[in-house]
Each structure stands twice: as structure tokens, then as C-alpha cells.
């Protein structure tokens, strides 16, 4: 983006390193009214999630017969979970494992490439650096889905469609991750430290792994979390790349179960769609909650340069 944005005109030390305790001088009075308004916002946010939890306890029959906002007579959550995992020879487990595979290789790989690249942009001067930066930032503006059809045709010529690679390879590039790692590396790694390591005779690879990498930890967690979300939640890419349900990730599987009700003679399993949805979102929500400290500090660093 352009130059005028960044931050307020403080010529002093980086505000990052001297975090403010309070945002307004003096002690602002807490406001019940404002807190109440925010509580409404929270209600809007959690309402669908509460709906999901409540309705995952119902049988298919109970779903239609009971009020959406309260429990039905029978409590079928455990039954639903068991059926979700065993339905159709346990295809849901297969989808879960596929998703894990795509996340480990796709998001893990994307994070690794972004860390390496961000480190290079922040700490090295090399020919073509400006061009790389311009092209990558420009690419962010290209609608990813506009690339989907040509990527599909290319991959199908290469014989990659309907294999896990068709989902993994495009997931390996995260321009946002590269950007964040670049900003973060510039901030977190003192150049003198690298110089010192080189003086001591460490080669570039060793310097990177032993000196730079530990300093980048919060940034890495942040990028890993966001690429994980992108891969775990990806729908469009697998939708066009995969025909074989055996390679579906969870998102595609759930959507297939949902449309199953439409097909003639199809088994109506909205209770499994709902329970499966609940199982799908729990790991990511848990990850965001438990890793709060890391990704929030990682993001804060990224925003400095915005």
C-alpha cells in the first residue's frame, strides 16, 4: 500500500516495544451501556453456535418436531456422534483424516515457505526483490477463484486432479503469510545478531535455524493458525479438484451429506450434518482459544506496517 498510512507520526521508539497500558489518559469510566451493546453483539455471534450445539442432540425426527432453540425430549448427542463416525463405513473418519493431511502438508508447507521467504525479504538484499514484492502483492488482488478453472485444467493435464496433490499444492502459497512473516522478521530479528552468528562461522542455514527461527515463534504460530484455517475451511478448491468422495475434506463431505436429502431415495441425515458440523469446528475454535497469546501478538506486529 502507500506510504501515508502506517502509523501516527511518532519519531520515537517503536510503539510495539513499549506497549501502552491504557488507551486513554486517566482512568476511563467503565460503561454499562457500552458493555450491554457489546453483549448484544456477542449474542449475535454465538446464537448460531448455540443453535448448533442444541440441535446436535436431536434425532432426525426430533429436528423437525421440536423448537430450534430448545432441546427435544430425547437426548441423542452420543448416538449422533457414533452414527456420524460410522455412517457409510466410517466415511466421516476418512474425511477427517484427509482434512488433517491437507492441513499438515498444505498449511504446514505454506507456513514453512512463508517463513523462509519472509526472512529473505526482511534480512537480505537480492536482485529481483522489488519485483517479487510487487508481483506477490498484486497477486493478492487477483480473485483466487478466478484462477481456479485454469488451475484445474492445468492440473488435469498434469494428471493431478482427483489426487490429494491437487488440493495441497495450491494451498502451499500464502501471500498474506509471506507478508506477515516479512514484517515480523524485520521487527523481531536484530541484524547484528545475524552478523554475530556469521562472524562465529555459522553458515546461512545454521544461522537461520538456530538464531532466526526461535525469534520468529509468535509469527510462525500466527501464520500457521491462519493457513490452517484457510486449509481446514477450504471448500472451492477441493470442490473443483476432487470427484472421488474418498479424498473429500470435511467441508466437502458435509456439503455432500446436506444435498443428499435432495436426491431421490436419498437418506435424509440432517442430524448427522449438524453433528458433523459441530465436530468440524471444535478443533479450530479450540486452537484459537488456546493459542490466543501467540497469534494476537503476531497480528499486532503485522498491523504496525499496515
Amino acid at each position, binding site marked *: *500500500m*502507500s*506510504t501515508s498510512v*502506517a*502509523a*501516527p*507520526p511518532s519519531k520515537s521508539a*517503536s*510503539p*510495539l516495544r513499549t*506497549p501502552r497500558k*491504557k*488507551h486513554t489518559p*486517566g482512568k476511563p469510566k*467503565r460503561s454499562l451501556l457500552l*458493555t450491554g451493546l*457489546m453483549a448484544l*453483539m*456477542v449474542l449475535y*455471534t454465538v446464537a448460531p*453456535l448455540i*443453535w448448533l450445539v442444541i440441535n446436535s442432540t436431536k434425532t432426525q425426527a426430533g429436528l*423437525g418436531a421440536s423448537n*430450534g*432453540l430448545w432441546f427435544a425430549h430425547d437426548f441423542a448427542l452420543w448416538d449422533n456422534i457414533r452414527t456420524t463416525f460410522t455412517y457409510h463405513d466410517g466415511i466421516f473418519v476418512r474425511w477427517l483424516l484427509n482434512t488433517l493431511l491437507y492441513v499438515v502438508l498444505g498449511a504446514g508447507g505454506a507456513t514453512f*515457505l*512463508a517463513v523462509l*521467504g519472509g526472512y529473505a*525479504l526482511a534480512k537480505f*538484499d*537480492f*536482485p529481483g526483490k522489488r519485483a*517479487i*514484492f510487487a508481483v506477490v*502483492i498484486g*497477486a493478492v488482488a*487477483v480473485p483466487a477463484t*478466478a*484462477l*481456479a478453472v*485454469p488451475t484445474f485444467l492445468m492440473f488435469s493435464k498434469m494428471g493431478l486432479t482427483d489426487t490429494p496433490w491437487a488440493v495441497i*499444492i*495450491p494451498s502451499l502459497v500464502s501471500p498474506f503469510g*509471506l507478508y506477515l512473516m516479512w514484517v515480523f522478521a*524485520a521487527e523481531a530479528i536484530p541484524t547484528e545478531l545475524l552478523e554475530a552468528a556469521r562472524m562465529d562461522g555459522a553458515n*546461512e542455514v545454521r544461522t537461520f535455524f538456530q538464531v532466526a527461527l526461535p525469534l520468529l515463534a509468535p509469527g510462525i504460530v500466527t501464520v500457521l493458525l491462519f493457513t490452517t*484455517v484457510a486449509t481446514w*475451511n477450504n*471448500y*472451492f478448491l477441493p470442490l473443483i479438484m476432487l470427484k472421488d468422495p474418498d479424498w473429500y475434506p470435511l467441508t*466437502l463431505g*458435509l456439503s455432500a451429506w446436506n444435498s443428499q436429502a435432495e436426491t431421490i431415495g436419498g437418506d435424509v441425515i440432517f442430524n448427522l450434518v449438524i453433528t458433523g*458440523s459441530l465436530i*468440524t469446528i471444535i478443533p*479450530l475454535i479450540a486452537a484459537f482459544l488456546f493459542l490466543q497469546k501467540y497469534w494476537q501478538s503476531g*497480528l499486532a506486529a503485522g*498491523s*504496525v*506496517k*499496515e
Partner: protein
Amino acid sequence: MTTLQPPAAAEPRPAPPPAKRDRRSWTGWGFIGPFVAVFALVFLAPIAYSIYLSLYRNQLIGGNHFVGLDNYTQALKDDQFWQAVGRVGLFLAIQVPIMLGIALLVALALDSGRLYGKSFFRITIFLPYAVPAVVATLMWGFMYGTKYGLVGDINEAFGTSLPDLLSPDWVLASIGNIVTWEFVGYNMLIFYSALRVIPTSLYEAAEIDGAGQWRIISSIKLPAIRGAIVIATIFSIIGSFQLFNEPSILRPLARNAITTDYTPNFYTYSLSFNGQQHNYSATVAIIMGVLTMIVAYAVQLRGMRKGA
């Protein structure tokens, strides 16, 4: 402003030792090379390939042959395409300001220090970002239903007659609500992170000058996070133009309301995977990409020029 350089100007670290450059001019490539290679494969090659595709046409008689810009002239006269563009344009004009407005208000409220339980609010409102579009759409889709859904329950309980949110008149607004729900928290976090790095000294100075809270917001906070607002706007515009997941997943519940050419992206998808018109589909995708970039660029120019 040592550490605060914005990307475009951010090339070298401030005053790099001149010797560095010669010594490891190519070392950096060892680190960025892998990224660039994959990037070229999944970004640059498809762009080049779709430009190639858009210049050809595959016909029963004559096979694959060069047609110049014929596909483009066809697309520019394609009513289906322009209707879809109009739909996402309307969506963008209404949904994006609402979503970003709410996100901004929440961020300012969090930053004001006047809330009880600030961190609880921050993390909770952000959570929907972790929910896949598929699940978000399914949840809301079930809730929208007049028969078994929440809307039906409310109608039954209170004797009201809330409209069918999945009917042609309402479905765009219903999709807007889903998208807003998914991304309010994410945008809030962008704004909030930007607000947090404003130095306190500015507030102190403002207070000495007798500025009130609203004045501080309008004269200090908003100008300081202008960059974040512009970026969030651009990302939201790109997102709106790409709208696909929500309408496509909602379609089984709203057959009448959501057609397979509902958004430009849905249209390219249907052209390609149901109609086998790959060349024409690539053309439509390119036009949409160019349109997106023009709008995003215009917003950036406008956003940067205003004030400050």
C-alpha cells in the same frame, strides 16, 4: 519511524551497511526461491493459461482455434454475466459498509477501555472466523427455514409471519447476514490491532487541548487507522466479487431463489463444470478479475487521498 515503514517503501532496512549488498547478493534467493517457484506454478501459470484459453474457442467442427477477442465481446454482451455482476455490486454496496461499520464500532469500543470483560468480547466476536463457510452457511440456512427452522419456530410461537428468508426477495440479504457474521470479527481485529499502536502521547496532548472522546475518535483514531480501513475495504470488495461458497451451499435449500449464475463466480463455475465451456469461462473469470482490481485500486486511491 524506523520500524514502521509501509510495504511499498519498505525495501531496505534503514541505512544498510553498504558492504552487505555485494557479499550476499544471491543468498536471499536460497530462502525465497521455494516460495517463488510454487507461486509461479499456482498463480502466474494459471493466469497466463487463462489468457491463452480466452483467445481460443473449442468447437465441434474445426476443434480448437484462435478467435482473437471474440470471447470478450461475447462476455461484454452477456446479460447473464452482467446480472450476476449487478447482484454482487448491490451486495457490496450494502453488506460491506454494514459489516465494516459494525467492526469499526466494536473495535473502538474495545479500544476505549470502557468495557467490562474486554478480552472476552474480543475473542468471542472473532470466533466465527474459525468456522468454515460451509458450516456457517448450513447453520444459518437451517435457521432461516420457515418450516423446521428458527424462523418457523418464531412464527409459530408468536403468531408472527416473518418472511421466508430463502425466497428470491430475501435471499441476497440472508447471504449478506451470513458473510457479515463470518467476517465482522476478523475485520474488527484488523482495526483493533491498528488502534492499539497509536501512541498514548497523542491522547494526552488532545486531552490537554480539551478534546472529548468523540473528538479524539474523529481527529486522532480514525485518521490513524485509515490504512487499516482501506485494506479491510479492499479485501471485502475482493471477497464480495468472489462470492461463491455461501450461495452454492445455500442452493439446495433455496432452489428457486439461487440460480447457477447467481454470482459471477458461480457463473464461471457452472460454465466450466456443467457446460464444459472452459474457454468462455476463463474469459469471464479474467473480466471479473480485472473489474475487481479496478474497483480495489479506485478505493485505494480515494482512501489515500482523503485528508491526512
